């Protein structure tokens, strides 16, 4: 099977070895996580003789969407479910990932519930207790924390904070008791102070399963969508991106630092299963 796959890979590389203009959109900042993936993937594409034009919109998601909508050449867009383009309630920016345009699921980061100071999980669940929790500016995440506290007869105030630095300032100031955010479980400030993450809600809080459709989507998915490529080119691109993720030291470091999960695959069938899993959590 591996031999067949290897032959197919070589064939695809050979067939794609022609100059082609590609637009690569990074809706984030020029120095953020998206930019690392963009840079590494573009390096690989250039080796495949693609001529890549990277456009970074510095978090103006409407502009990123505009570039995507009106691009008439082969286009790749690196996006995350917490970016403006990934948020369903953001009518101006949202771009729907579909089975047709999903090029690659890059990684997922868990959303963790951690202590911001000296309070423990037992303090949170104590009936009649009162707490302040930082959440992302997301209605369903905020509602989940309220429902969870209510199930323990605890009172909670939620504060929506978008930037990690702003959240950290409030934590260092001692303004809040808990933080519910993506990727914080590996940071030095919260390491060993996290109690559970969104993927563990099923088993940890069986009584919260009525909100399952919401909390399954709490993690941050980072993925690529594309348009204007032939099926053959898409297969070739997927293989190249997979190899980039496997071999790039920069990406390995980033994955470790952000506590991300990367889904590797060895066959088209395995990739299809990963795509199915993506849409369960998207």
């Amino acid at each position, binding site marked *: 099977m591996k031999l067949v796959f290897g032959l197919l890979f070589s064939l695809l590389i050979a067939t794609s070895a022609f100059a082609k203009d590609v637009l690569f959109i990074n809706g984030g900042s020029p120095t953020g996580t998206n930019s690392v993936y963009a840079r590494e993937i573009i390096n690989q594409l250039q080796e495949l003789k693609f001529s890549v034009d990277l456009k970074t919109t510095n978090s103006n998601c*409407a502009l990123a969407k505009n570039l995507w909508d009106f691009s008439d050449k082969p286009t790749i867009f690196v996006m995350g479910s917490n970016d403006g383009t990934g948020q369903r309630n953001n009518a101006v920016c949202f771009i729907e990932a579909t089975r047709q345009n999903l090029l690659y699921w890059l990684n997922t980061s868990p959303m963790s519930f951690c202590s911001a100071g000296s309070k423990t999980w037992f303090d949170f669940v104590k009936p009649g207790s009162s707490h302040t929790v930082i959440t992302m*500016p997301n209605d369903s995440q905020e509602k989940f924390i309220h429902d969870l506290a209510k199930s323990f007869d605890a009172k909670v105030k939620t504060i*929506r904070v978008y930037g990690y630095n702003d959240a950290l300032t409030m934590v260092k100031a001692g303004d809040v008791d808990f933080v519910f955010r993506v990727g914080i479980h590996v940071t030095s400030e919260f390491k060993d102070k996290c109690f559970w993450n969104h993927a563990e809600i099923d088993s940890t809080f069986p009584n919260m399963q009525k909100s399952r459709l919401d909390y399954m989507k709490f993690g941050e998915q980072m993925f690529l969508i594309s348009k204007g490529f032939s099926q053959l080119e898409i297969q070739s691109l997927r293989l190249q991106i997979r190899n980039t993720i496997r071999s790039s030291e920069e990406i390995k470091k980033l994955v470790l630092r952000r506590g991300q999960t990367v889904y590797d695959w060895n066959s088209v069938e395995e990739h299809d299963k990963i795509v199915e899993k993506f849409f369960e959590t998207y």
Partner: protein
Amino acid sequence: MDLTIATIIGIFAGILVGLLPGFGMSTCLLLFSPILISQSLVFCIMFYCVASSTSQYFGSITTLALKIPGETTSLPLLELMKDQRIQNRIGDVYFLTSFGSFSASLISAVLILISFEYLSSITTYLKTYAIFACSLIGFILCILFSENKIFVSLLLFIFGWIVGKIGYDISTNENFLTFDNVYLYGGIPTLPIIMGIYAIPGLFKMFSYVRSVEKQNIEIYLTERKSVLILKNWKTMVVSSFVGFIMGLIPYIGNGMSSYTSYLLDKKTNKNDAISNAVASETANNSANLSVLIPLLFLGIAIIPSEYLLLEILPLGNKAFSFSLMQPYLLSMFILLMISNVVSFYFSWNCVRPFIRMISSFNNTIPLVIILTIVSCVGYIGGEYQQFQYYMIVLLASSIFGLLFRNFDLLPFAYAFMLQNNFEQILYRLLKLYF
């Protein structure tokens, strides 16, 4: 050796940031990021500290010589340039603002060094209520003590607030005056606004200025001995250093308002001394520029945009911020920072004359050179974000606004515009936490 190289590159970068209108620390970090990514943590921090500190010395030269803001913290000095007393004693102002910047750096650095054991445990200044109180006081001072009548300042403040609010707020998921325009959706960019309302109108004044410079044969002289000038202003320098130090600690708002708060406080005590007011403003911003590093160095928190960017760049080279990694180098960093301040002070003071001479030799072409530099900087940054035309339109519109209102004090507009978003966030958090 690493630290020495960082210091040398930092001085060079700081000179660029100070002298080039619109080339702020954030742009500088973007430009130097390919170098910084491959360097150690202490190298990056040293580079940032030195560049940020050096930029303040040379930013004053741009403001005084060209009448355009080298940095946003130079805006009060720019307002003071309208005062004839400043124009008549420009040599004294050059010297005193440079010396004030130097003394502020020295005082702040010593304060940090002697209290660093306690700094990591003191976090009261990060409390939401403390940030709210300081920003509210700053805004009230800004309206009450500007050069305009109070209702004019209030109107300008409200207008600045509205302009700053334009865009999509990701926290509330609401649009404000975007009219479905993709560019407005990202908000009105700060750089073209500040350049438009200050730099372009300033160029008109420069035409007459370069002619007068030619007539006067560019004499930048001191009216009194240096020691006498320092003795007359030492109190202002010390007080402003402390005011700037405290303001710099206030997240989001403090650094931007440090020079203005100090300027307003000095105006209350030294009402008719424009020179003292200028010294207060330029001393405080240097002091704040160092104290703003305290949350970054001791707690790993960024409280101004360029620090956010630095904290984004560090992980790209797989460097996590850690105070324990920095601690063994603190004394060396302090010494090198002081050396860089001495070098900056010496060169900024000594390059004033050649700089003015260069302006006069170009005579009427210098405003053209400046306008091209501004447009290039604004266009380059806009182009980097795929918004070249948008940045140009904003520059044009704000230039017209700046020209129409050139006889007003536009600081209430500028501060409301720049700090609106942060203040609204703080207000939201305050209400959620305490009510």
